[in-house]
């Protein structure tokens, strides 16, 4: 079943249909779609992670 879904998703565009009217958060004068909010939050999280996670300098280092 999951394989079929994957194949169909590939053939017909997507597994998750995002073509519904968007949801928006209203925060003071800021209005933002959940999609954009997620992207921005992810960027901040990834930036912080990049700085905080140790970059091990040993052979076959962690990835």
């Amino acid at each position, binding site marked *: 079943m999951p394989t079929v879904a994957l194949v169909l*998703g590939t053939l017909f565009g997507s597994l998750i249909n995002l073509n519904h009217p968007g949801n928006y958060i209203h925060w003071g004068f800021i*209005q933002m*779609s959940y999609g954009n909010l*997620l992207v921005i939050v992810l960027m901040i999280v990834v930036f912080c992670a990049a700085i905080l996670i140790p970059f091990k*300098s040993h052979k076959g280092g962690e990835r």
Partner: protein
Amino acid sequence: MSADSATKKVRPFKVDRDAVAWHGRYEPYDLAKEFLIAFVVVCILVAGLAILFGSPDDTPVTVKSWSNNDAVGFATTAATELDGTSGTATYGPPYNLNGTTAGKLGPLNPAKWLGVHHPIDTANDYVLGPLSTLANQPQVQAAVDEYKSATADQQATWTAAYEKAVADAKLTDGKLVVPSGDYGPVATIIAAETAMARSGALDGALLSSRQFYGTDYTKPLLFIADGDYFANLGSAQHLSGDQWGMMNETGQYPGQAWLWLYTLWYQVGPIGSSDNADIMVFSIMIGLTALLALVPFIPGLRSVPRWTRIYRLIWREHYKEVEKGGGSGSPPQQTAGEAKTPVTV
């Protein structure tokens, strides 16, 4: 490349502008392997996101779909194109010379500097011209001729009266019927225009009016954008300027988050509601962009990285080593063979 301090002037060291060259330890770092890993990770991420979410493809609006979904709205807009009161008709450069909606920046009006490059005469291009291409429609041709040969004042009287009445118009047997009144030939013209639009013939006429192989959709797009139907579709998807629309995408897809600062100014009351909003926001963004590009030259702004001390986190291993050892300068140099356990990236 050592500086001959006797003959060369040495600038004072400014910590936010200058950097001391590195003479400390080097570690193996495989750039090619790093690139390949990054490439594979990106490919997997992109494929995964594409399989999960796909991409949006909302059907475009046509004059046909507009007039079939909102015949009265279409007729209202068509009347304003005929009498030259529509948004496009009164836009000014680069479409025509009838006033300007583009706004000023103090005494400057850059919108006018390059003049009219994409001429649009809404009455002829959108209404009278296309109607003249209809074959076997003598009443329509007669109405067009009557309108064209009337005085400007007479035309204005007819269209003003029509525009008051068209809000109460109805579609009866596929024909647009307005409450009775003295509109001269305008009612016939707009009814014919609406019928032409609903059949799809107007879309074709607008595109092929100048050449067979057109790729320039300016005329039909501006006509469609003059109508409320199109504007309402946009605001229903939160795409309007006053809804942070520039950042958004149709549906629930993430949009262009990087445009946040550009669209932000349109949400600021005095700027967003000004007639000169566009040129004001553009000027602000040019200024801020210049600031970003010229950060290295701007004292204060270029000190922010040092003040915020995030660099202490990024380089914490380096500082541990240097500050443990004490003294100034870089950590003691190691010869190539003495490198610590190599980094295989």
